[in-house]
């Protein structure tokens, strides 16, 4: 299978690019931030839903387009360029994927269409520590009668305070389980932080929260393997957004050094900057390949999809860090002022590279898979 976009995927990407060019910009990003860190723009979100982006990864059986993650990846790459804020990651990439991977048909039929239509928002409650560590979940679910009792403390729940439901990953008898829990359930306490990227991430305490057993998402399927698939998909999806951000930051920087003059010359004439720019170009070419490969490997269910999604998140984390640092440095004094937009990419980079595991985490996973 060739490593290129299909014609449909290309069309989708181009349409997304056009739509976002007229509906999203760093100016809107700044406006949301200055408006007390507003999570997203309702109109933009409605537009995304109308464009069908929320339906891309929903199977046809639930009313979706079943277009695949390569498609969603193209959308996320485009949103990464303007840092468009929306519940696309929390509700669709994270939550809808989690539900889809599980096997509770009742919950799937009920909630996938709702998520797709944007009628409700969901948030994934997975992290528990300062560092990503999905293999050591301390939150627990215990059956008591025909109800489950959930206990635990979750962190980094993206868009947690906007959500109607949490998808909570817990340890049930040393296996992973997934529960759908109403945010208004008794025993839930939510506190939210604004992180460096202006995003809203919640800490959620589950204190003896009682959940009907019908709300358990994985019935027969092994929760550990669902979690593995979920992590592959989220890594590839986040890497797609990172790819978009990286390209935008790089382009803005190239534009800047072609225009800005110092010592009587365009600063882009400096050979040392040219060589650094050329190296960035090469690294970004590598990033394009691994993101596309990770997405396709998921859609085609290739055996190496685990390795490729780890590689995608690791490589993109590395190169996005390099790109944003170089972007600031090449912008010079302007680059470190809040007046300039380039800093937004730096700050988003450090959060998204950490989200769902940083470069070291993912490289370590690959080394373990390969047995060294």
């Amino acid at each position: 299978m060739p490593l290129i976009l299909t014609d449909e995927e290309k069309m989708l990407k181009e349409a997304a690019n056009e739509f976002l060019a007229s509906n999203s910009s760093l100016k809107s990003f700044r406006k949301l931030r200055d408006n007390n860190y507003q999570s997203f723009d309702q109109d933009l979100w409605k537009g995304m839903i109308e464009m069908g982006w929320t339906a891309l990864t929903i199977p046809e059986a639930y009313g979706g387009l079943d277009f695949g993650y390569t498609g969603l990846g193209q959308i996320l790459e485009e949103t990464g360029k303007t840092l468009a804020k929306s519940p696309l990651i929390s509700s669709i990439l994270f939550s809808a994927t989690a539900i889809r991977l599980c096997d509770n048909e009742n919950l799937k039929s009920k909630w996938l269409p709702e998520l797709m239509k944007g009628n409700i928002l969901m948030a994934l409650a997975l992290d528990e520590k300062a560092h990503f560590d999905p293999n050591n979940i301390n939150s627990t679910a215990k059956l008591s009668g025909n109800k489950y009792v959930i206990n635990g403390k979750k962190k980094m729940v993206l868009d947690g305070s906007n959500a109607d439901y949490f998808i909570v990953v817990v340890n049930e008898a040393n296996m992973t389980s997934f529960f759908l829990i109403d945010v208004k359930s008794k025993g839930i306490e939510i506190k939210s932080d604004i992180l460096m990227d202006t995003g809203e991430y919640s800490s959620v305490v589950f204190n003896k929260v009682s959940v009907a057993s019908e709300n358990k998402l994985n019935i027969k399927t092994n929760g550990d393997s669902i979690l593995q698939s979920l992590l592959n998909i989220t890594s590839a999806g986040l890497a797609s957004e990172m790819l978009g951000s990286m390209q935008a930051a790089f382009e803005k920087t190239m534009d800047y050094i072609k225009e800005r003059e110092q010592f009587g010359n365009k600063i882009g004439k400096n050979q040392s900057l040219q060589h650094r720019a050329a190296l960035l170009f090469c690294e970004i070419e590598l990033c394009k390949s691994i993101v596309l490969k990770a997405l396709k490997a998921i859609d085609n269910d290739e055996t190496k999809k685990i390795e490729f999604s780890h590689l995608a998140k690791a490589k993109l984390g590395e190169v996005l860090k390099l790109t944003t640092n170089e972007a600031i440095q090449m912008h010079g004094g302007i680059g470190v002022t809040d007046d300039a937009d380039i800093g937004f990419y730096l700050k988003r980079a450090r959060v998204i590279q950490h989200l769902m595991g940083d470069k070291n985490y993912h490289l370590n996973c690959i080394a373990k898979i390969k047995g060294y």
Partner: protein
Amino acid sequence: MDTKLNIDLENFRLETRAWLEVNCPASMRKPIKDSSEMFWGGRNPEFTSQDQKIWFENMLEKKWIVPYWEKKYGGGGLSAEENIILTQEMSRLGCRRPLFSFGIAMLGPALLKFATEEQKLNYLPEIVEGKIWWCQGYSEPGAGSDLAGLQTKAEDMGEYYLINGSKVWTTYANKADWMFCLVRTDNKVSKHNGISFILIDMSTKGVSVRPIKLISGKSPFCETFFENVRVPKSNLVGNLNEGWTIAKYLLSHERKMIGGVGVTETKKEVHELAKLNLECSSGQLNNSLLRADIAKFEMDETIFELTIQRIIDEDKSGKKASQLSSFFKYYGTELNIKREELLIQIGGNNSLVWTPTEENDGNAARKFCRSKGNTIEGGTSEIQLNIIAKRILNLPT
């Protein structure tokens, strides 16, 4: 060395120690937490504690605000040896600097070397007494690293200079009383030859200031605008059109400061923070890739500190001046950026918090963002590498 002199110096050390013990309040011996605990003086001085005021006034009376300047300029007239002893004793007790001042660190050396005797007598004592808060007007919005490309012009109007233009990165221009400033006084000659060094009262009509917000949040930096500002001709320091000589003299001074030379802040080692924040097995960090990065970083950090020591020792031993200020500026700031990158990795989620909460003040993320300016301000890393290549390695231009 002369035995008599040695005994005198030993006596000076004992007296100094005793005086400091009595006159430096206990709270003034604790490390400064943030800039709000610094006293900067000025026309509207703000003491943030009674102890701060007492400490400043005691030192002022003792003439130890600038102990090594001549007495006629308000200094303490100490010899180089005595000054070293005073510095050592203050750092032994942990005494804070009684007055933070660009007048002492930056303008003073320039005036001492380039000003008329009248100017020295006029400005230096006010600096020592903390009466005037000085700021520095070098960079301009359009010039960036090309400092000598500055465009703020001072036209000779006979009785005064008429100043128009703007400056950027003027630290605390919003609080300062006076600015020492580089202006263009000749457009027709090569850019380095048409610059002059001039002093401007910030309360003059036509001066306005706008604070700059950085990617890390608020900052002490400002933009300063001059619109038909009239400055007396007597405010010129040094010769007309020879300001670049003064600027170079001060810049090499500044580079050493930013590069971390002379700063004796005790920072926690990165691996200690890692051990507090990350999981270990049998005494080793589980995150072996991060461990490798930390080991590499600490190697360079330790050796850089030894290098500062070596160069200082070489300078002291009379080896010819080593021209290494660009090296210090470059390597020191690049290391600091690496340090901050490591720290946010070590802190994980906790170091990404931006808006302060009860548990988290958001300082880690803001310090991280702020560090990105280190390799730009005071001459970019690229400028420093150019200087090393040309002035030290003599590579062709």
